[in-house]
């Protein structure tokens, strides 16, 4: 039996929660589906204070932002149903989804769907990268911040983007020793303030350096690192062996486009947005009528922008279903202004370029 819903939101991270809020405020009935036991997405693992401006809850710690967003759903006029530990495993024509929940498959058909599934981690190819003791940054955060377990005591972080820098800092706070952060590029990828925080703690950051192989019998015992030249080629003879009992990989994220691809939404490979992304119009609608996307699933960015995009997409979806809110135009403009403001600086260059390319692909179609 297929159950009918007005709006289905897939994913309960900052984008999904913010979309739910604006859709509920427009008096829609919303089914929010989250595969984890709790709502909040990436936010629940973030113990640091967030950047951004007041509109995006800057200076609050990530997990507290999650609580704020979840609490914000309580008094809205629309009706909200939340399924947790429920994974959307399939998405088909006519906005039909299959959900694995309570040990059964359930089918829903919706008037509109917002996909807010976030991102998955990229991994890195090197010799012995399947040895126990090698983790993705997300896995380390789950172990450490949700389960209270340290992955090791002497850790190498690979990748100096914000995630690598922040997780390295969290590992130090949790009592592990991060010996080095490796970065293949000539410059640190993440914010300088995050890098400076780590340096004060005695963590070295090695640019133009990468991991060549992991060494160990049954688990990681050491790793061999090596310097890179301007063309990213290994400089022979610069190999160095460092003892370590855990290696953490933080080399980037890719949008989770799989459900959309399955449903036949048009996608395009745009490296600035993290890989394969759904082709969306300026309303975040995919090539399938009534199917929207927001947050990291539409291009890797930040929680700050995911919240604004979520709010925006919720309003647009509501309008599509005939629920135009009172301040609609003003709210939409506010969202656009906030996104513009978040992205207008040098840190937003990549995302601006990615969005430009995406629009180009759309125009050609």
């Amino acid at each position, binding site marked *: 039996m297929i159950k009918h819903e007005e709006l289905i939101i897939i994913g309960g991270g900052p984008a999904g929660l913010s979309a739910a809020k604006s859709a509920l405020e427009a008096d829609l009935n919303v089914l929010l589906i989250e595969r984890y036991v709790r709502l909040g997405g990436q936010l629940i693992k973030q113990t640091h204070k*967030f950047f951004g401006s007041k509109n995006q809850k800057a200076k*609050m710690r990530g997990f*507290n932002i999650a609580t704020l967003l979840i609490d914000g759903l309580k008094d809205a006029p629309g009706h909200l149903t939340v399924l947790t530990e429920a994974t959307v495993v399939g998405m088909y024509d006519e906005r039909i989804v299959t959900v694995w929940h309570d040990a059964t498959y359930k089918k829903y058909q919706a008037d509109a769907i917002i996909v807010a599934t976030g991102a998955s981690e990229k991994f890195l190819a090197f010799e012995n990268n399947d040895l126990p003791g090698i983790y993705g940054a997300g896995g380390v955060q789950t172990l450490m911040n949700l389960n209270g377990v340290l992955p090791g005591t002497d850790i190498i972080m690979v990748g100096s983007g914000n995630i690598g820098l922040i997780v390295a800092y969290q590992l130090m706070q949790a009592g592990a020793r991060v010996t080095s952060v490796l970065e293949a590029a000539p*410059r640190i990828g993440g914010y*300088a*303030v995050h890098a*400076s925080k780590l340096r004060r*703690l005695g963590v070295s950051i090695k640019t133009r350096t990468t991991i060549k192989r992991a060494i160990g019998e049954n688990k990681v015992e050491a790793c061999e690192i090596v310097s890179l030249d301007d063309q990213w080629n290994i400089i022979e003879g610069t190999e160095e062996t460092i003892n370590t009992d855990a290696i953490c990989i933080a080399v980037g994220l890719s949008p989770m486009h799989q459900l959309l691809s399955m449903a036949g939404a048009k996608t395009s490979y745009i490296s600035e947005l993290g890989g394969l992304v759904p082709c969306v119009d300026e309303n975040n609608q995919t090539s399938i009528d009534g199917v929207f996307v927001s947050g990291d699933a539409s291009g890797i960015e930040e929680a700050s922008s995911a919240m604004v995009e979520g709010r925006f997409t919720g309003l647009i979806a509501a309008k599509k279903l005939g629920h135009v809110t009172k301040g609609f135009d003003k709210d939409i403009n506010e969202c656009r202004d906030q996104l513009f403001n978040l992205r207008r600086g040098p*840190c937003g260059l990549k995302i601006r370029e990615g969005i430009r390319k995406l629009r180009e692909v759309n125009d050609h179609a």
Partner: protein
Amino acid sequence: MLKRTGVPDRSQIKDAFPDESYLIKPKAIIECFEAIPCNPCETSCPVGAITIGADINKIPVIDHAICTGCGQCVHNCPGLAVHIVSIKEDKALFRIPYEMPDVPKQGDIWDGIGRDGKTVCEATITAVTQKEGFDKTTILNVETDKTYLYDFITVRRP
């Protein structure tokens, strides 16, 4: 080079400080040298001493003549990029944000650490403040010899 090592250059640090004559009173030193989308320092300052402006990607600019050294911007900065500094006779007095679980006690003498993580001096902890409003960031008052005004940035258990 900041973006290669994570450590600001000496000249960047010096530029973040006002003339030493200002430091007879506590002043905020902001070491935020990169245009990132962030502005809690500006919005938390009760006297409007910090300016970023409508484009939140701009680098914060502080007017040390206005800054009262109240410390609001210190715990509100997510980048731990602000500390309060003053000079009293031959001592440099600091108020720093601290987020490690191993918190010193008032009166302890810990290692004074530089921006590259190396020990630079002795640091006497003169106060330890933890408040609801600080949202789990501890504020430490620290005293070092004045010589280390531009070198000291944090403390570590010896």
